[in-house]
């Protein structure tokens, strides 16, 4: 959390009873919140782990040792390994242009970057099916050169890039706007080149915010389901990512295996949350204040 937990408490003591709720109301509100979170967040998370180990540790390990599951894990790592760096480069470029310069159409450009957040994941996949499908202009043309986009890794990467497009840029833009251009101007006036300024001045200033954006981008890239599902074609052992493998196993009533793969994704989510919280605690000033996703 960005704020100090003890501070409101001290202020509460100072302003006295008139500006706080009665203890009964306070505890009722806390109880309602905890009950709601228990029911909506903790219970589903617990269910994932309990169901995965329902038939014991051996069944769990056996489910994860399945070659198709292994290939799904590999594919997820490959897709995220390509999509995240691409959006990292884009995010830095976009933040540099938007935060360090004043130009016409800046607000419009920012809105365009946020666009993928308001598009349904299924539509994010559909647009690539329409662009590269067998009935499109581009699809058969590329096919004649032996390039396969849909139902192959390039399609999965494109859909993932589309969905995770804004994450890094969104994190960096407010941060770099807040930092201004004084540091860079100082470096430049001392004779640093543009790239030197970026590597030795800007990058150290934004590294924690950058890591934060990459973390969120990666979590979404590895967990994306709807967009990837539409372009994947569900070829077993070939174009199934981990979330798609979860769906297939679940629909085959292979619940232990489905939840076993799900535990890996849930662990990814928990690791992401822990790192995110640590970054927020230690580097709150270096992370953009905007926390909407």
């Amino acid at each position: 959390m960005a704020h100090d937990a003890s501070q409101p408490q001290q202020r509460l003591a100072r302003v006295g009873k008139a500006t706080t709720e009665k203890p009964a109301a306070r505890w009722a509100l806390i109880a309602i919140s905890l009950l709601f979170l228990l029911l909506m967040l903790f219970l589903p998370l617990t269910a994932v782990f309990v169901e995965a180990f329902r038939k014991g540790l051996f069944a769990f390990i056996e489910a994860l040792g399945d070659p198709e599951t292994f290939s799904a894990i590999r594919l997820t790592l490959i897709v995220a390994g390509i999509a995240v760096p691409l959006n990292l480069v884009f995010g830095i470029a976009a933040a540099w242009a938007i935060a360090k310069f004043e130009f016409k159409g800046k607000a419009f450009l920012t809105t365009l970057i946020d666009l993928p957040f308001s598009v349904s994941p299924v539509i994010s996949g559909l647009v690539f099916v329409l662009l590269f499908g067998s009935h499109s202009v581009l699809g058969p043309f590329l096919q004649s050169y032996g390039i396969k986009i849909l139902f192959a890794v390039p399609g999965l990467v494109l859909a993932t890039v589309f969905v995770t497009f804004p994450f890094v840029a969104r994190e960096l833009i407010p941060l770099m706007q807040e930092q201004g251009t004084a540091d860079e101007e100082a470096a430049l006036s001392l004779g640093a080149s543009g790239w030197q300024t970026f590597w030795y001045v800007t990058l150290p200033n934004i590294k924690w915010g950058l890591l934060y954006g990459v973390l969120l981008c990666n979590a979404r890239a590895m967990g994306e389901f709807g967009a990837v599902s539409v372009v994947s074609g569900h070829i077993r052992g070939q174009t199934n990512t981990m979330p798609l493998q979860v769906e297939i196993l679940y629909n085959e009533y292979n619940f232990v295996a489905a939840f076993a793969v799900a535990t890996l994704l849930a662990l990814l989510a928990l690791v992401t949350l822990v790192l995110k919280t640590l970054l927020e605690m230690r580097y709150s000033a270096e992370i953009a204040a905007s926390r909407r996703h």
Partner: protein
Amino acid sequence: MNTQTRKAWRIRQPSVIPGFGLALGVTLFWLVLVILIPLSGLLIRSSALGSANFWALATDPRTLNALRVSFGTAFAAALVNVIFGIVLAWVLVRYSFPGKRIIDAMVDLPFALPTAVAGIALTTLYAPNGWIGQWLTPLGIKVAFTPVGITIALIFIGLPFVVRTVQPIMEEIDREVEEAAATLGATRFQTISRVLLPGLTPAVLTGFALAFARGVGEYGSVIFIAGNLPYVSEIAPLLIVIRLEEFNYPAATAIAAVMLLISFMMLLVINLIQSWSRRRYGYGA
């Protein structure tokens, strides 16, 4: 920045910082290639259908029902999230209790947990023989495989949107306003309902709109718990997938175009709320 006056013919104001051309070039290239060309492809495809054809596809009874289910459940879920989101944000900002930091971090779980995992977990809980479902079945309450189940999944997905938009604004509330209200004789309830909550309206509306927009398009967490019964619990994104699997591209395109237009309108509404709140309250929601 510099103090030079902006001239009408100048696209950007002069600056000593290098790399504008490169940075903007990379940004625009990537934006056009990955986002704008694919999205305009969809719009071109749907306009190529012709207005009569498009209208017939968009007003097909099954499509209309799917849109109704998507928008209805997303609306209900966003409403529930507004109520619990305000309470939760209040508790996190104002009170201290053991485990608060963990609770605060957990609010982001729906952002981090892949939707398919959330979907199968919620289905396990709310299926008729599930952890929670088995207690509801004797009472005659059916959650999984009904629109109620869809709403539950969308509550899960949308919760962080409301909490995370309201929470920072609550932290900014000036305590002197409350003290003033109290010294003027307002009860605590009056202070909250008449003084504090109205100031939170823009943030709450933004959070509601974000949760609603996300819920309308949500797919992964919903399809497992929905039961996917046409006309009853079939959501619009699923119908797009079904039409695609039937190779009925015109129908899939038409539904997508309708959803896209509505989402863009919602985006516009969110931007309007934010600029209105900046004007009125001096901060963005």
